[in-house]
């Protein structure tokens, strides 16, 4: 394996993480299996995949809403598993989350100012007039204003609610934000508002994002690097432009070609790879490579051996037998040199 020099420091390291859910009667949902990746400080890492691929589960495992079944997650060099007391409080301030459903992510019985100030209250960061000031400031940051502070969530539109959710996350001054499908419940014109707001905040506050979504166009737009997940596995990870220009994994290729493009001429000319069938159940995933049942390029080996997660090009990782030979050859060539 070659080691490309990381540009900046790693803020998050996810190592061989597994998250299995026990469903009783000896059924285990392998929601996330052996996922490994790093997130660098200040970047946006996008995670895409279809429903049930485990992208939300990995996000929730990282922020400790779920406990990892196996593997290690390091945040700022420290393992997150045994955080307690003070260090846990610190972790809760440094890592925050933005949720998917703007209608379910705000407590309907609380006023907007109480929602936004929740982090301030929990960590005792501000009281009284200072608290009020902070709330107003946060509201302005996300493009709302003071009059909104005493209203209740049900009076707001989806986009406004999502911005309130962002303000709540920002209240504790985090460095790292996991955005779990933050725009998929919003209308097109509102999506751009929220995404642009997130980009602006990243510039101003030096935030790092893990951006989880199923909309490939939006993920490509906002992310520096993109990881593609399928049935609990990370199958490919690369710089976003490179991933779209030269996808290596057959699943990435199919996924990209399936996205409809809002340009009639381009859209109609495009060659589509239409995958057959549906995603298998994560309770009893296929042996070997999990994608093999739908893969147009499946070989015999795919059913028997789990493909290795390797960096076949600089900063371009993929788990696919098609490229194992390639990297083997490379290694041999190196040896011969």
């Amino acid at each position, binding site marked *: 394996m070659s080691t490309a020099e990381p540009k900046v420091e790693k803020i998050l390291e996810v190592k061989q993480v597994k998250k299995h859910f026990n469903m009783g009667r000896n059924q285990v949902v392998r929601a996330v299996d052996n996922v490994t990746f790093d997130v660098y400080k200040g970047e946006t890492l996008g995670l895409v995949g279809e429903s049930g691929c485990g992208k939300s589960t990995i996000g929730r495992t990282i922020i400790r809403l779920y406990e990892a079944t196996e593997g290690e997650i390091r945040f700022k060099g420290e393992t997150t598993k045994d955080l307690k007391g003070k260090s846990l409080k610190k972790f*809760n301030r440094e890592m925050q*989350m933005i949720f998917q459903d703007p209608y*379910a992510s705000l407590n309907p019985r609380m006023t907007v100012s109480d929602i936004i100030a929740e982090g301030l209250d929990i960590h005792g960061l501000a009281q009284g007039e200072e608290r009020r000031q902070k709330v107003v400031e946060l509201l302005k940051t996300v493009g*709302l204003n003071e009059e909104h502070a005493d209203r209740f969530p049900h009076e707001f539109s989806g986009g406004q609610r999502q911005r309130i959710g962002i303000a709540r996350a920002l209240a504790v001054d985090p460095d790292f934000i996991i955005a779990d499908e933050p725009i998929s419940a919003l209308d097109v014109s509102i999506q751009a508002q929220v995404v642009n707001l997130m980009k602006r905040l990243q510039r101003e506050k030096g935030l790092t994002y893990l951006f989880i979504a199923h909309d490939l166009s939006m993920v490509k737009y906002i992310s520096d690097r993109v990881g593609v997940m399928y049935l609990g596995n990370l199958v490919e990870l690369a710089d976003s432009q490179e991933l779209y220009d030269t996808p290596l994994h057959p699943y990435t290729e199919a996924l990209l070609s399936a996205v409809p493009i809002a340009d009639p001429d381009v859209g109609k000319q495009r060659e589509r790879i239409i995958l057959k069938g549906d995603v298998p159940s994560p309770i009893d995933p296929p042996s070997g490579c999990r994608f093999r049942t739908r893969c147009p390029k499946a070989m015999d080996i795919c059913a028997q051996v789990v493909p290795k997660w390797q960096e076949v090009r600089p900063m371009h990782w993929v788990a696919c037998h098609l490229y194992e030979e390639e990297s083997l050859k490379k290694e041999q060539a190196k040896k011969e040199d």
Partner: protein
Amino acid sequence: METTKNLTPDLFEPAETDVKEQEQIARKKLTFWGDVWRRFRSNKGALIGGILLLIIAVMAFIGPDMNPYTYRAQDYSVINKEAFGDHWFGTDALGRDLWTRTWYGAGISLLIALLAAAFDLFIGVPYGCISGYYGGRVDNWMQRIIEVLYGIPNLVVIILLLLWLDPGIFAIALAMGITGWITMARVVRGEMLKLKSQEYVLAARTLGASTSRMLVKHMLPNVMGPVIITIMFSIPTAIFFEAFLAFIGLGIRPPEASLGVLIEEGYKQLQLYPYQLFYPAAVLSLIMFAFNLVGDGLRDALDPKLRQ
């Protein structure tokens, strides 16, 4: 284009667009409970039920003192007389004033209602909260306990209790304390399980909220709706339970008066003096009817599915 009249060029100058205006909320400011109250108020049936309850409650309080008789004073000179003088409901077989006894009985019924609500709130809600919030093994055990309790018929419990207690309000309360809150516990547990996976609850967890904060700020306010509805529907059951026990002789016993006792006495005299059954039965029916009306109204007002 000729149809649009009186267009002047100045109308085509750029207009100011105010960003603030774009975020304006047109609708009136309303809290959740304000909204519920508005909807409850617009429901005529519920309003009538509420007023009826209020009247009955007031009467239960002041009714027994409105004429000079007490609920237990017997007067053999006026046995089985229909309404006359200040015996507004007449008298019973022992010459006791039916008006006083009826409202005294209504008071007992309302006391039972209060007890039922208290058991629901102070046993059912915490039990369901703990069971649903912690989940896993705790939940499993607590649910098994509920199932065992639920399996014991109420009547058996009360008969067993009467082996070492005198029949009366205390025995009834104890019987209700054992099983009466189970429905509430189940409702609350179900709501808690639902709420636990709500994103705002997850958001509070990622912010590091303590368990007590989660329960007080996020969970309890959001189960209040179903809790109120459940109380409103468990109260009539409790009142009816008391009346039933009195009727079969296992509850409150004469000379104490409850609506059940009065109905039982009136039932014996039904063929000769139907009014003795009529008054207490009417009051009991009104109480049940009113609670059901209010309960229905509250359910409609609180049901999020009808909100919009």
